[in-house]
């Protein structure tokens, strides 16, 4: 179990960091010289979706947030395979809480 969990965590963080870095460079190239303005364009959550510099960063951040979720889902699968029903139930509940929190957004 240790090896699998470790792999999921490492891959998730690296991929997310890569996506965020690419988006960040793109964003700085496009908007770098502009004055930073905080209050505009932040009212809606949808602003950062789609194929844009901030959209790409946002996608990377989403991937990062999903990494621990994937770790819990993997643990659930492994406990089911071991027929450890108590811990399958525990991880299943944690997964439900996580998905419940995220599904409200996605």
């Amino acid at each position, binding site marked *: *179990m*240790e*090896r699998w*969990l*470790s*792999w999921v*965590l*490492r891959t*998730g*963080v690296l991929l*997310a*960091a890569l996506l*965020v*870095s690419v*988006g*960040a460079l793109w*964003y*700085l190239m496009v*908007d*770098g*010289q*502009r*004055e*930073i303005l*905080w209050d505009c364009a*932040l*009212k*809606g*959550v949808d602003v*950062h979706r789609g194929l844009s510099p*901030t959209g790409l*960063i*946002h996608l*990377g*951040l*989403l991937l*990062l*947030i*999903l*990494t*621990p*979720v994937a*770790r*819990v889902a993997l*643990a659930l699968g492994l406990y089911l395979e071991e027929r450890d029903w*108590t*811990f399958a139930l*525990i*991880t299943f*509940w*944690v997964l439900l*809480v*996580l998905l*419940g*929190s*995220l*599904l*409200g*957004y996605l």
Partner: protein
Amino acid sequence: MSVWEFSLGVFLGSTLAGFLGALTGLGGGVVLVPLLVLVFRVDLHHALGASLVSVIATSSGAAAAYVREGYTNLRLGMFLELATTLGALFGAGLLGVLPKRLVALVFGLVLLHSAYLSYQGRLEDQPIDPKDSDPLAKRLRLEGGLPSPEGERAYGVRRLLAGLGLMGLAGVLSGLLGIGSGAIKVLAMDRVMGLPYKVSTTTSNFMIGVTAAASAGIYLRQGYIDPRVSFPVMLGVLLGAFLGARILPRSSTSWLRTLFALVIAALGLQMVAQGVGK
């Protein structure tokens, strides 16, 4: 301030925070939020969102390495996540309702508390005895073994329900303040549940990512996670934590801990002043 200047400044500050956080074991989140709010004038909610994201990044990155070393008690961690995730949902929900000044005040108090803890320093390991384990912990097979040169030494888990309760509180603070609240998690496992220190710190780190992910859904929905603030924070903290972890084995950190504790205390006072000020 131009976008470039802001991003570079936040990136460098976050690198330093991640570096010191990894060296001292206090985590970077606690200094990040005051840095963003007091120095870069970022809105408190967006500072908390960026901090939460960086907490997920560092804890997942570190856990990937720790889990392989065999200190992390996976079963105990997953069991305690029952409480931390529910607490985190509640804390993140509170954040939308409470006035910002109150949140700043609580943040300042938590900072002062962790400065006190790190000033106090690490206490000695309690003797580990597998015999006086909690019956429920035995039923759930939560006990583990500590890898040591002489082979695995079995340890027990005491006061499971008290630990579970404290984990709920750690979750609330994590969701409310966008931090990992590793200090409380370690306190609960080390002091209350009687686990070896190394097991407490690695298992705490293991749970932090999942705890923070539970609040993240609510933060996203409220628009607290702004990519423009989050990216320099996330990349900076990751880089700093990575560097810190590489230097850690061959550095003496006692004076650094004291210095960092002073910085945290100063920032804590500033945040409290913001909270009670006009």
